[in-house]
Each structure stands twice: as structure tokens, then as C-alpha cells.
């Protein structure tokens, strides 16, 4: 009986081997970011971007949003007035992709930006870029103003944090392009 139990336990070990992919650390949850960034909103909508918007983003950035990236989360007041919108996207880096969230006001200016998810390895370089859960140096930027990596996490030392500031700035620029193209399409 003891041998049988031992064999069963060992077989359990054997069945456990299968490739897995390293999960990210969740710093901020998406829903929490939407609610906190668009605090005046009472109604929320998921906006799936149409082909013309995706084409405009590709033309501007050379990057094609994936199915998951090609969405906006829009907040409105009861009367329907736009409070703002949020873009989530994944940005590749040498140590795996990181998820960036950018909230825009109705005029397209950045209300808040943050890193939502990041791998365990780059976490130590990304965390110093965040102040109270947000990325400094990008708030208030208009859609025509590209984020300056040197202003993101001004106090974060080290080459790797600076590298991640560039990666994040690239992600924010892509989010701006999505927002700009989406607003442009809404006006048409």
C-alpha cells in the first residue's frame, strides 16, 4: 500500500511538467484605473475601434493595434456628456511586454497614465517611475505633444529605469494616436 501511495505521489509529480509562461505582476487593475481616472463619469462604455481608426493609427505610428488594444473605455455623465476615455495597450520590451493605461480628458489631454502590469524581472526598474501609482511628467500633455522619456520618473536613477521610461513613452504615444484617431473619426 505504501508503495502504491508513493507511486501515485510520484506520478503526480510527473504530470506537473508543462511549459508555462511567466505571469505579470498586476500593479493596478483596469477597472479600478478607469473608475479612478474618470471620477465624474456615471456610465461607462467599451468602444471598439473601426477599421479607419486602426488604419490611421498604423499610418501615424507604424504599429497595428491588436484586437485587445483596439478598444477605448469611455466615461460619460448621466446626461451623456463625455468625461474622458481610457486606452489600455501592451508595449513590448526586452524583458517581456508591459501594460500601460492612459486616461484622456474630453479635450484629449492626458489626465493620468500608469503601468498596470509588468513582468517580475523589470518590476524593479519600472516601480521607481511611478509616483502614487501614476507616471509623472505626462499629465496635461495635449494630443499634439509627444511624451518626453526624460520627464517620466525624473527621480528614478539607473540606465534600466531610463530604458523603461522610453518604452513607456512609446506606449503613451501609441495611446495618444488611438485617442486622436478615435476623436477624429467621431468628428467625421
Amino acid at each position: 500500500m505504501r508503495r502504491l501511495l508513493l507511486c501515485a505521489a510520484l506520478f503526480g509529480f510527473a504530470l506537473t511538467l508543462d511549459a508555462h509562461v511567466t505571469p505579470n505582476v498586476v500593479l493596478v487593475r483596469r477597472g479600478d484605473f478607469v473608475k479612478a481616472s474618470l471620477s465624474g463619469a456615471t456610465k461607462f462604455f467599451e468602444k471598439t475601434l473601426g477599421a479607419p481608426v486602426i488604419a490611421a493609427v498604423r499610418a501615424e505610428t507604424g504599429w497595428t493595434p491588436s484586437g485587445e488594444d483596439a478598444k477605448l473605455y469611455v466615461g460619460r455623465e448621466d446626461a451623456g456628456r463625455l468625461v474622458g476615455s481610457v486606452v489600455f495597450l501592451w508595449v513590448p520590451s526586452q524583458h517581456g511586454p508591459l501594460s500601460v493605461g492612459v486616461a484622456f480628458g474630453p479635450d484629449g489631454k492626458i489626465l493620468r497614465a500608469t503601468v498596470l502590469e509588468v513582468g517580475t524581472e523589470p518590476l524593479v526598474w519600472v516601480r521607481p517611475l511611478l509616483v502614487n501609482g501614476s507616471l509623472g511628467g505626462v499629465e496635461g500633455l495635449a494630443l499634439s505633444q509627444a511624451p518626453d522619456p526624460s520627464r517620466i520618473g525624473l527621480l528614478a536613477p539607473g540606465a534600466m529605469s531610463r530604458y523603461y521610461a522610453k518604452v513607456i513613452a512609446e506606449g503613451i504615444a501609441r495611446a495618444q494616436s488611438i485617442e486622436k484617431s478615435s476623436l477624429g473619426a467621431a468628428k467625421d
Partner: protein
Amino acid sequence: MGKLPESPFEVRLAATLFLLLMGLANVFGAWQVRNFASFTPSGVAEAFRSEHEGHSMPAAVSEEKPVDPASLNVEQHHTGRELLVQDSHVHIPVYAMAAAFFALILFGLRLSRRTRIVLVFAAFAAPVLDFAGLWGAHLWSESGRLWGAVAVFGGFLMGLVYLILLVLTLKQCWFSRQGEGHA
């Protein structure tokens, strides 16, 4: 070849502890798979599907539908191509080293040459199948379940090699060292 069972105590101890520690690592590996991937072909296919596939063409115009922000908090772990590239470059070398260490221990056990060859081949084929399955599920989602099955089979094959190695090492190094000839 085949001299591990007659090796000094510390050599047998090192080989055995290495295998037991690998077993412990496997337990956490299984936990990780349960949390972020799947043990079933269809689960693997879904977790590794390309984000550009499985979606219809983008709509001509943007569409808006109500959403509850709380629903966005539900974690939907999905593996994009960049993450798969990154993990392939990390995991495949580790898999290769594990297979190489397994092979070294195999060389020390009393086994027929044919058995050694089969087990060595299986130890190195398993990670190839595993990652071929993951990449297949990612690149060709229409046959994702088939590729998922390849990945799961590869993982289980590595587990089987480990199990055989552990049982043989425990038996030959600690329980039946006396009076057995070399194969």
C-alpha cells in the same frame, strides 16, 4: 556508464537531492500552469491564441457598448507574441539544461543502451514538442487544439522521463545496490 549506484555516498546524495528538488520545482510549475495556462489542449489553444486571429475583421465604424468597469478587473491572462518570444528564450535553455542533467544521471544508472537512448531522446524531445505546441497554437489558431495537445504531451513526456529517472535512481542508489550486475 552505470556506476552511479556504486558511487560514493555524496555522489548518490547529490544526484538524488537534485531530482527531489526538481520534483519540488515541478509542483510549483504545475501551480503556475494551473494559474496562468492550462493542462488541456483547448485551454492551451485559448491561452496562446494570437490576438490578431480569432477576431473578425475590424468593423467599418467604431462601436460603443455599455460596460461595467468591475468586469475589467477580471484577469484574463493571455500570451502575446512578445511574451512567447521572451519566455521561449528563457525556458528552452533551462529545459535543455534539465534534459542534460537528466541525461548525465541516466548515464550513471544500470540500464541497457537502448533504454538510455530512448530516455535521452525523450528528455530532449519533450521541450521541443512543448514549445512547438505553444508556437503552433499561437500561429495557427484554427488547429489550436491539436497544437495544444502537442504541448501538453510534451510536458507530460518530460514528467514521465523525470518519474522514471527518479524511481530508478532511488531504487538503484539506495534500495538495491547489492548483488546486481550491470546491464
